[in-house]
């Protein structure tokens, strides 16, 4: 391993860290603006021009807030839980491709690492995402937090299965776990066309995995205030926020890579790198807009509806989708 490739790797890591940290700043603002517009309001417009610095101000405010650890809480677990939110969230970004192979002095891919089990790695980190909510909810020793933790745990593991079933059908088509190979295999046709049902299952499960409306029961503010992180304040509270928005963006990137052809799209010869990044980002940002749109449009599900929807409708559909995909693949190839 020579010095140049080490530095290149470090540079890529820092860029991804920057995206990870910028995601909540940009998307919280975008969400509030878009929600405002949908509800015929203006949204935040006081801090800076057009209110653009609202989330920066919010971030500074959170950083300087008093850090309260309730005496009834379990201090060790309470302290560690935010790390369990942030670390899986950031580790998953190491396998996400932002663009194709490019020539910058030497051949390099616009991703941190091409893990040959990439998609499984992301799913495994998704299942570790259960611990952040469960640990914070249990350690807070507060009733709202406790309910949030239980709800979140059962919800994340249930929808993890349907997510995995949808991914399985993608692998049947792509023949690889590597996210880069999966994008390459969609050069001629985006997988959303043969896998439209899988695409829908993945999106629904993805929204549920990230605890977003209409599946935001673990943090339903009208019934359990904020759910598992109700007792957190200041910078630790910010950690939960960062992890939530980074996970949403990660899920959008995953949909882009698995179903929408990743960096594939109209390109100018010589500018494949630039157009690849632009295409990936354009697709992922459109999906992020979908998240906000859903939140503004749909009311929250009841918990019994949430669970029975997953196990009685989505899971059988996922199995059916896998069977159909396998048979089609066998006949078609």
């Amino acid at each position, binding site marked *: *391993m020579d010095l140049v490739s080490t530095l290149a*790797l470090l540079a*890529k890591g820092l860029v991804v*860290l920057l995206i990870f940290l910028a995601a909540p700043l940009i998307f919280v603002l975008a969400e509030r603006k878009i929600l405002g517009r949908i509800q015929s309001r203006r949204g935040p417009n006081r801090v800076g021009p057009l209110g653009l610095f609202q989330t920066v101000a919010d971030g500074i405010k959170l*950083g*300087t*807030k*008093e*850090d*309260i650890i*309730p*005496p*009834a809480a379990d201090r060790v677990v309470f302290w560690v839980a935010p*790390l369990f939110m*942030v*670390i899986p969230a*950031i*580790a998953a970004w*190491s*396998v996400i491709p932002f663009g194709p192979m490019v020539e910058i002095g030497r051949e390099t891919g616009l991703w*941190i*690492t091409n*893990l040959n089990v990439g998609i*499984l*790695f992301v799913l495994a980190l998704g299942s570790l995402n259960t611990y952040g909510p469960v640990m914070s909810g249990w350690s807070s*020793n*507060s*009733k*709202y937090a*406790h309910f949030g933790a*239980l709800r979140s*745990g*059962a919800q994340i*593991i*249930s929808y*993890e*299965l349907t997510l*995995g*079933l949808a991914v*399985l*059908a993608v*692998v*049947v*088509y*792509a023949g690889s*776990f590597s996210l880069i190979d999966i994008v390459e295999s969609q050069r001629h046709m985006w997988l959303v066309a043969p896998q439209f049902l899988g695409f829908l299952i993945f999106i629904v499960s993805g929204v549920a995995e990230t605890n977003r409306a209409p599946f935001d029961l673990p943090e339903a503010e009208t019934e359990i205030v904020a759910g598992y992180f*109700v*007792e957190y304040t*200041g*910078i630790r509270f910010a*950690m939960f926020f960062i992890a939530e928005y980074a996970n949403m963006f990660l899920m959008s990137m995953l949909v882009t890579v698995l179903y929408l052809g990743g960096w594939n799209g109209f390109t100018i010869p010589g500018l494949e790198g630039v157009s690849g990044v632009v295409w990936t980002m354009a697709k992922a940002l459109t999906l992020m807009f979908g998240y906000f749109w859903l939140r503004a449009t749909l009311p929250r599900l009841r918990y019994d509806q949430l*669970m*029975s929807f997953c*196990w009685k409708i989505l*899971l059988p559909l996922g*199995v059916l989708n*896998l*069977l159909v995909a*396998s048979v089609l693949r*066998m006949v078609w190839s």
Partner: protein
Amino acid sequence: MPPYIGVAMMIILGLAFAGASIVGAGLIRPKHPTPGKMDAYESGVPPTGDTRGRHHVRFYMVAMLFVVFDVELIFLYPWAVRFAQAEDMAEKVTMLVAMILFVTLLAVADIVGWKMGVFDWSKE
């Protein structure tokens, strides 16, 4: 360069960021604890009773089902890769039949859970 180095680097960067921001904020934030502030937040009412009571067994049953599904699903991933790469028709058919048998077990698990009311959270 082994691919896991990138993963290790991201984990270290994440830990560095989280540690630095928690410690850094500790230097500037105020600390004025009052009894009211330190209470668990239960919409302004003083907290009553113990939080860590017993919970409904359904959560456990869902986790149980999840373990079974997860174990069975993960073996289908290598299957999917092999199936996509299979060349001759005979091999494809054998693989497909093995997979259908396997998925039937999953379907049975789902139906058993369904009939036993594991997914009916509104009943009782």
